[in-house]
């Protein structure tokens, strides 16, 4: 049976890479006494996928992992055993049976809470940012040429509350924006650079599975 695990990443565990997070989940499940189902083919691999890679250093309150076990234990039992075996900073929020296509193929949007110092006029900055049609930033990637990206088009909502920006970013074929890009671009609207204190992913929204697609 395939299970959807919702879990949080905090404290030192936020420094785990995507691959390390996957391996940590797998070994915790194995210690919990479960065999992971293996893929078919020459080099069978455990069937697991994280819905959306998380950048190293970013915390999360809503990571999603789809993992297939070789047996069909009760989801609540999986949650309990997993909670016991996960290292500090990885916490189970929910385990349920995963129905339909994997979460990674149904991504709609991702939300972040960007904790910032209130040392600039965020409300004005947010207003100008949302009023713009296009806001282009330069994205540099190690070993690749710099790229110009319009980050405004991905931003479906943006709100300033004391000490924090709440932002929702669309995930589409055209890619997405990074939360720190948004914070920088918003602050730039009032000629400032932000002091980002924490980046927390707060939700991953999935598209509904089309009717009849249930596996």
């Amino acid at each position, binding site marked *: 049976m395939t299970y959807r695990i919702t879990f949080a990443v905090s404290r*030192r*565990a936020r*420094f*785990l*890479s995507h*691959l*390390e997070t996957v*391996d*940590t989940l*797998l*070994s*915790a*499940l*194995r*210690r*919990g*006494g479960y065999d992971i189902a293996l893929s078919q083919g020459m080099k069978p691999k455990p069937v697991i996928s994280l819905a959306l890679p998380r950048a*190293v*250093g970013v915390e999360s309150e809503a990571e999603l992992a789809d993992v297939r076990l070789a047996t069909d234990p009760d989801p609540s039992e999986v949650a309990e055993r997993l909670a016991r*075996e996960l*290292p*500090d*900073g990885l916490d189970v929020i929910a385990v349920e049976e995963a129905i339909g296509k994997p979460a990674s193929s149904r991504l709609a949007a991702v939300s972040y809470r960007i904790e910032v110092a209130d040392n600039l006029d965020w409300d004005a900055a947010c207003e100008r940012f949302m009023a713009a049609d296009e806001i282009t930033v330069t994205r540099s990637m190690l070993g690749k040429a710099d790229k110009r990206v319009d980050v405004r088009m991905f931003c479906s909502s943006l709100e300033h509350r004391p000490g924090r920006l709440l932002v929702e970013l669309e995930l589409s074929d055209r890619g997405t924006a990074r939360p720190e890009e948004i914070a920088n671009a918003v602050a730039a609207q009032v000629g400032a650079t932000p002091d980002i204190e924490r980046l927390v992913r707060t939700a991953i929204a999935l598209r509904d599975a089309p009717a009849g697609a249930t596996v």
Partner: protein
Amino acid sequence: MLQMTQQLLDRRIEAVLETVQKPSRYIGGEANQVLKPTATSLVALCYPDAYEVGISNQALQILYAQVNARDEFAAERVYCPWPDMGDAMRREGIPLFTLESWRPVREADLLGITLQAELTYSNVLEVLDLSGIPVRAEDRGEDDPIVIAGGPSASNPAPMAPFFDAFFMGESEEAFELVLDAMDAGGGRAARLARLAELPCVYVPSAAPRPVERAIYAEFGIETQPTRVVVPYSLAIFSRASVEVMRGCTRGCRFCHAGTWYRPVRERPADEVIRAGIEQLSCTGYDELSLTSLATSDYTDVIAAIEGIKAERPELHLSLPSNRVDTGPVAMTAAANSRQSSITLAPEAATQRMRDIICKTITGEMIEGAIEAAFRAGYTSLKTYFMIGLPRETHAEVQGIVDLGIRAREIGREIKGRGGRFSVHVSVSNFVPKPHTPFQWEGMSSRDQLEAKQTYMRRAMPTRQIRLSMHDVRTSMLEGALSRGDGRTATVIEHAWRNGARFDAWTEMFQERAWHDAFTAEGTTMDAEATREFGEWDELPWDNVQSGVSTEFLLDEWQQSKADRATGDCRWDGCADCGACFGPVRNKLVR
């Protein structure tokens, strides 16, 4: 350095981790790590290389469990920060910290650093300096931990003596308890060091000179095999369960330091190995188990252990490292693990003459048989290990490696067909003479000779289906200069480290200039030190360390080697009188 609260330190560490590569090297928190807030004394255990190398070391896992088993002590791990992290820590004034509690290493009462390889020596100084501990023992005060070395390279303490307060010689399982007792008995630094200096297996450079004896764990009971081991993050080079089935090897390869340093042979019964293996698998969640030793196919109960484990966990992948080059062991390795597509064979030398010189008692027939068995068993990648620069090597030996590479390809083609998919990997390292071995008196081959031989092999070895890789001569020369070094070498090491040397075993980090300058400043050269020959009457820098194996035996083995004669294995061919056995210390085979 200003004192800062733990909370403040935690925040500053987190801030720095935002900026460095692979921050998971520094976060700890892995499954099965041990936190002991009630312990009164912190013991920091350090492997002076990157996390991914150090976390895989078995000896430190044994020590971690051993120290943590005592209520009053908390063992916490520390590794050498990668240069980006080291630089950032210096910039931000962050002292080196343990992984478990992020406490400064300097707050430990005891800092144990394992010396597994000479090319980590510059990192030892880096670790001390980042911790805020004076690199020279003579400059340390009451607030500094006692810094103790262990591990195989401690068997020649001279090059590192000024940097350590003490050296622990040999196996920790029983004798390290005495070190902990000496720490626990109270008093200041001087009192503790005085007690350590009384232990037969501990060398305290500042105390009166006397012989130091290697500690041997004669019993080799299964209870000291850790089962609830730390499960490293996935960057670790080895990530699997492992049970040590046997310690020591009496094959007597004359280049091999471990072949002396872990004598005699002690085996664990199969039923105990099986139980420990299964328990470790369930504690860790690993899906692979390694039965470790210096030569697992020599372990008497190897078949029983494999079958027993397979009976309980049929899907499990078992790996048997370091197997003898022969048909039987290859077939056994293949049966134990169907997932592996590659197998490693280590003939070390390609001609019978050289195998007799180094006492590697295998024949050409056995090597060909093993290669054939490997391809028949379905392996598609065959990796072979050889050495060049061995004593009295001629062109025939070097040519022999080329010929054997070609022969392996021929065998592969015969079995897999001419268009068959397989590859032969010939890996060639450079012989480095080691203390406490029959070759300890030999000089290393010159840099020019090694480079010429490598150039020849690159030209002579065909490239189709054969991959030739050769060890960097530059780092081999350094290893050679350090391994048999003396008191002057210590000055060189400190100088090179001050010049920026660190992570010398990592090709991309190796700073040859820093080392050459350091040797020059001492009025010598790296090559002169590496190629230095000792006469049989010369005093050796490691003469104060008694491995248990007598100098007479080593000398006799050296003479035998000059006569191209191999010596038998005492497990089957009668005692060779090496001196390692006394009282309860003797070969302990399960049958």
